[in-house]
């Protein structure tokens, strides 16, 4: 039998456009797998020549799902260009906004993109394995997903305004103080959001027993993990230092200054994808494979920082003696982070200075280079800018969360495909599992122009000459 390849193009239920190619050997078994990102964004070039003060709102447009994450990393880089320390209240308001972003993004990933698999099964008919099937089977779960996403979105609207590009987070702080009415609206919404998060977590934990094979084969291998931690080694999404741990849970680097990221993170490029392949430099390429995001964050920290999430984190950590390795557990970690975020939002809003009027430090640029790092829902994002004497951007480097996970996603696809896919007898459920591995990472490749039309999943089996010998369509 000739060597063949299977292509999944586009992958469904992820943010952005990508495809998976599975290469089969003569026996029809998977030999290699590649996760391709097929869209080119070019933001690093796009911002050259723009005034640095425009960069936060410009960078927010990188993504329609997590604009706040880029807004915050960008504003932090601009704080450094100004050379100012921003008021504490401004930092806390940014934290709240970032956590609200995390809640709404995690809710989208968990409830609407991945829950159909959990609720209806990986082998369920794809015609019903979706939000409507979920609504028919467990309407309250579907409504909970909407409600939790609304919770995060509304906080962002109440704090940063309703327009599509909130210009509220700016270099030096935030543009205006928090109104008491907005604070009270958010606090009033906290109990329902927390109730939803906790009942979803209980339901998911009870469901895990039905996914032991997926847990065993969905990106379950040793890698490094990276994420921000606070000064006490606690869960941190806005500031702090970057910690790297290994599969055994050993801390390899306890807190390098994010501004020195280039000393520790290399950026490789592969021909088959527009997405960079960052790696931990001390380990080399590709051995320096690491993961970021909810799973990594819960692996690198010493504690969770808020009481309810701390209980859940202790239970989560008990899954393994060292780091929790299976990428299937990204979903679990996502839910714990939602609990943490709701608790942290409530706590921050109770800070006595949260309504202070002084929320912005003003200055002209004092530095020509600025680096901003924060934790987006999907993991660490790094914005690095260089400006000239006129304050115009002369260079930018962005490492986005999904990029950090690129090597791990590729290896995960290969592991799952080798386990589940038989090229001689293709079944939809096999290929759904390969996609589901990618969905566990919740990659955000970000939409560019969304032309109308079908985004059907196409799976092709090609022979060595490139001829289609089999094809599945959803």
């Amino acid at each position: 039998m000739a060597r063949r390849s299977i292509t999944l193009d586009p992958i469904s239920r992820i943010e952005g456009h990508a495809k998976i190619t599975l290469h089969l050997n003569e026996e029809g078994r998977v030999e290699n797998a590649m996760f391709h990102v097929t869209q080119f964004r070019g933001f690093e070039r796009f911002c050259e020549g723009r005034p640095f003060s425009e960069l936060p709102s410009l960078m927010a447009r990188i993504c329609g799902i997590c604009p706040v994450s880029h807004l915050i990393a960008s504003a932090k880089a601009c704080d450094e260009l100004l050379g100012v320390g921003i008021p504490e209240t401004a930092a806390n308001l940014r934290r709240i906004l970032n956590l609200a972003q995390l809640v709404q993004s995690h809710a989208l990933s968990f409830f609407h993109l991945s829950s159909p698999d959990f609720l209806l099964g990986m082998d369920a008919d794809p015609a019903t394995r979706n939000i409507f099937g979920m609504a028919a089977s467990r309407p309250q779960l579907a409504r909970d997903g909407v409600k939790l996403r609304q919770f995060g979105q509304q906080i962002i609207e109440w704090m940063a305004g309703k327009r599509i590009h909130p210009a509220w987070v700016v270099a030096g702080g935030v543009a205006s103080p928090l109104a008491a009415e907005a604070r009270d609206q958010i606090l009033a919404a906290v109990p329902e959001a927390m109730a939803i998060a906790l009942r979803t977590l209980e339901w998911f934990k009870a469901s895990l027993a039905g996914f032991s094979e997926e847990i065993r084969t969905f990106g379950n291998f040793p890698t490094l993990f990276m994420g921000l931690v606070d000064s006490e080694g606690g869960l941190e999404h806005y500031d702090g230092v970057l910690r790297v741990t290994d599969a055994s849970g050993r801390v390899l680097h306890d807190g390098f200054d994010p501004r020195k990221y280039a000393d520790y993170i290399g950026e490789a490029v592969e021909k088959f994808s527009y997405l960079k392949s960052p790696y931990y430099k001390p380990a080399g390429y590709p051995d320096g494979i690491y993961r970021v995001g909810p799973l990594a964050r819960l692996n690198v920290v010493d504690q969770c920082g808020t009481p309810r999430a701390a209980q859940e984190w202790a239970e989560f950590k008990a899954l393994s003696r060292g780091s929790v390795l299976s990428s299937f557990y990204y979903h679990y970690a996502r839910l714990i982070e939602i609990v943490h975020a709701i608790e942290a939002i409530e706590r921050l809003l109770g800070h006595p200075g949260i309504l202070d009027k002084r929320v912005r430090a003003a200055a002209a640029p004092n530095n020509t280079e600025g680096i901003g790092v924060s934790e987006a829902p999907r993991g660490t994002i790094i914005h690095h800018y260089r400006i000239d004497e006129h304050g115009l951007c002369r260079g930018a480097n962005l490492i986005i969360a999904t990029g950090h996970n690129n090597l791990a996603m590729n290896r995960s696809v290969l592991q799952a495909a080798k386990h589940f896919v038989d090229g001689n007898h293709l079944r939809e459920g096999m290929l759904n599992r390969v996609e589901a591995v990618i969905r566990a990472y919740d990659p955000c490749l970000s939409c560019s122009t969304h032309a109308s039309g079908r985004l059907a999943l196409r799976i092709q089996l090609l022979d060595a000459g490139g001829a289609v010998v089999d094809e599945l369509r959803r």
Partner: protein
Amino acid sequence: MRRVLVIGYGNPLRGDDGLGIAAVEMLMGRVEAGLCDPGVAIRFKAVYQLTPEIAADLAGADFAVFIDAACDNVQGDIIHRRVLPSASALDSFSHQLTPEVLLALAERLYGRSPEAYLYSIGAASFEYGETLSEPVRAALPALVDQIQAACFGTQS
């Protein structure tokens, strides 16, 4: 009071894909200037893409308008059509939802969906840039006139 929801969606960094946002901003400006019937409770959403929580907003509206650029029509032509709830428009529950799916989701989850229409202009360019192409820019005021008439029952 009639509850109207206007949703403009698209990426304003990709040329004509910013049509939905531009139309929302123009109509919002007219409302804020007092040029529209105050007896209508109108809400606006300007978003990159259609996401599930918008179903809850739709369930609370009597009338809804979606605004998006069209890539398969004559450049500068204004098009509008009725949108009906349809779960079958959900092929694989991809990263973005359609108006039809959102309306169906509103019905399934909340038991109701509004009368809804999609308004578009045939786009000329989706290349990087923050400006609309000339054909789309020229047609934008007329598009907003039509949407305003549909929402308020009056022309500006």
